């Protein structure tokens, strides 16, 4: 392996430990074990396709209305107007832009749901346990900084091309901020409030669910927001392994040097990002910022309740 004579001044070029070859072994193992993974893949693929079909089955105008209502409920009237305008612009970008955006939204929603299910427990654990935090931190660093192309190939070898692989590479990239911010949120809870909860007889799980998680919610939602943003930034790379949607438009346009088509795809992604960002940021406001109203006291639900005389 070492084709050069060993030199003390340059020890690196003369020694080959075969890291790349053994990593290639992982790829071989992945190919050999594809069958095990297929049922799992089918389950997740059906989930993603189901969400995609559901989003696309709703007529665009009704979907637009729903999104405006959700934005109004979650983040107030201003954001609702912004969402309405932005999504209308997105729809008029190109005849098929709306359908592509819904497909992309389905991928992002699937990835974010899975990130939440994985990231929240990990973040809580990291927030409670210093040792776990110190173990997971380099892992998160790796996940965030390692170029996506490095794990794209092994993932495709193991799972094959398609939505599931796309969601998996998205999770690898988008999960870390949720874990980090959940941990930060749990650590940031006022220690004296936790002590008071202990003094009044709360058990550890009651402290977690009644005190720590509610108080960490704004920080955790900031993490969800970041996860959504990073998921969207992965859609073009994910489209390289045959994920449909706006990302695929950009990729195809690049191949044909079609700047106009690339712009449509790119703008679509940006608009989707703005919409999702504003809505999730609105959800993350603390109770005091909302004037201490419950969520059902404002927005369209509040209006309906007031009109029907229930509130």
């Amino acid at each position, binding site marked *: 392996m070492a084709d050069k004579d060993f030199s003390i001044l340059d020890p690196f070029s003369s020694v080959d430990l075969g890291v790349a070859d053994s990593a290639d072994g992982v790829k071989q193992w992945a190919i050999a074990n594809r069958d095990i993974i297929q049922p799992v893949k089918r389950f997740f693929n059906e989930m993603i396709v189901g969400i995609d079909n559901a989003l696309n089955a709703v007529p665009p105008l009704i979907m637009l209305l729903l999104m405006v209502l959700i934005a109004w409920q979650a983040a107030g009237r201003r954001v609702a107007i912004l969402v309405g305008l932005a999504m209308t612009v997105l729809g008029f970008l190109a005849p098929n832009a709306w359908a592509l955006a819904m497909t992309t939204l389905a991928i992002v929603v699937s990835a974010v749901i899975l990130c939440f299910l994985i990231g929240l427990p990990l973040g809580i654990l990291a927030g409670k346990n210093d040792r776990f935090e110190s173990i997971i931190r380099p892992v998160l660093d790796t996940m965030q900084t390692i170029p996506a192309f490095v794990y794209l190939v092994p993932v495709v070898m193991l799972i094959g091309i398609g939505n599931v692989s796309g969601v998996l590479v998205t999770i690898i990239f988008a999960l870390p901020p949720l874990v980090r911010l959940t941990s930060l949120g749990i650590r940031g809870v006022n220690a004296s409030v936790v002590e008071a909860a*202990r003094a*009044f007889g709360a058990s550890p799980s009651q402290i977690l669910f009644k005190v720590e998680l509610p108080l960490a919610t704004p920080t955790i939602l900031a993490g969800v927001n970041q996860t959504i943003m990073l998921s969207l930034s992965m859609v073009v790379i994910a489209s390289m392994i045959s994920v449909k949607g706006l990302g695929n438009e950009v990729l195809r346009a690049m191949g044909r040097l079609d700047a106009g088509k690339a712009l449509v795809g790119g703008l679509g992604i940006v608009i989707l990002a703005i919409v999702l960002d504003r809505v999730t940021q609105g959800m993350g406001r603390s109770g005091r910022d909302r004037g201490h109203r419950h969520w059902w006291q404002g927005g369209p639900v509040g209006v309906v309740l007031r009109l029907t005389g229930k509130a």
Partner: protein
Amino acid sequence: MNTKPTEAVIDCRNLWKIFGKRADEAMKAVKEQGLGKIEVRDQFDCVVGVQDASFTVARGEIFCIMGLSGSGKSTLIRHVNRLIEPTSGQLFIEDEDVNTLSAKALRQVRAEKIGMVFQNMALMPHKTVLENVSFSQEVRGHSLQSRRENALRAIDAVDLNGWDQKYPDELSGGMQQRVGLARAIAADPSILLMDEPFSALDPLIRRQLQDKFMSLSAEMKKTTLFITHDLDEAIRIGDRIAIMKDGALVQVGTPEDIVTNPVDDYVADFVAGISKLDLISAGKIMEPLAKFESREGPLNGAAWPEAHPDQSLDDLVNLSVTTQHPVVVKIDGSPVGVVTKNALLRGIQGDFDATAAVTH
């Protein structure tokens, strides 16, 4: 294990708390070689929080622990509900050693037997006043209805009617601490732990809350452990006071005891600035009748104002200003002593040993 008199609700015996990684080694060294606080710090890199504290609090008594910041009083009070584990020693609550309780039993004791009020309120910002006050019942799984009833009763007791649906940050500091007090009494515990509850409030509000607390506690008769760094407050509120310094209880006694017989210079320094008017009684400063008569001849006190030995200096001042005569102290109509104007003035200064020797 159970040899103590039953009326002690809180019984703390030889409690030690040493903070640090080598606390157990340090504890052993302290017991075997009698190391002091400084030696423990230098040899084991540990901090002594509480040294050998022993005290009892009787049912219905208000026991104040007074000390400066860092004297270990907050550490000590947290041993009562075992928020902090002792390094050595025992603490009994109603004959139960809290340090042998299981986690589950401990939570029950904390929720049902002990109410605690904190210096920084420590209210939950995401819960309404009502939800905060009913927290200890919520964690015990009581029904919403009974929770609400008890909580509203406690909120009523601290005069916060109508604020139950507000959030803590919508209330002033004084009101927040009243919520803290309501939270502590909502489950009707037999013990109240008050960790400098009024220290963070301005003097006027502090006074109001002290009054509120005293009237509540006269009504509820709860066994109370009250931490403060303010001797005036301790004297006003406490049935008995313990002075704490460097983690050790220096002196335990009634307010009058502490003020009239400080055990060392440290305590004497503390009590020097305290007004004696309400604390010291006529009996303490009067010159015994025999001594007075041997000096001044037979008592001719028909026109002199009369007082009872238990009356305070404040009362004596009021009696004295109307006349030039000394005050004669009588028990059941028969004179037992005399308080001259000079003795009264010295008494107000806190100088009562000298009063017997006052000459004219």
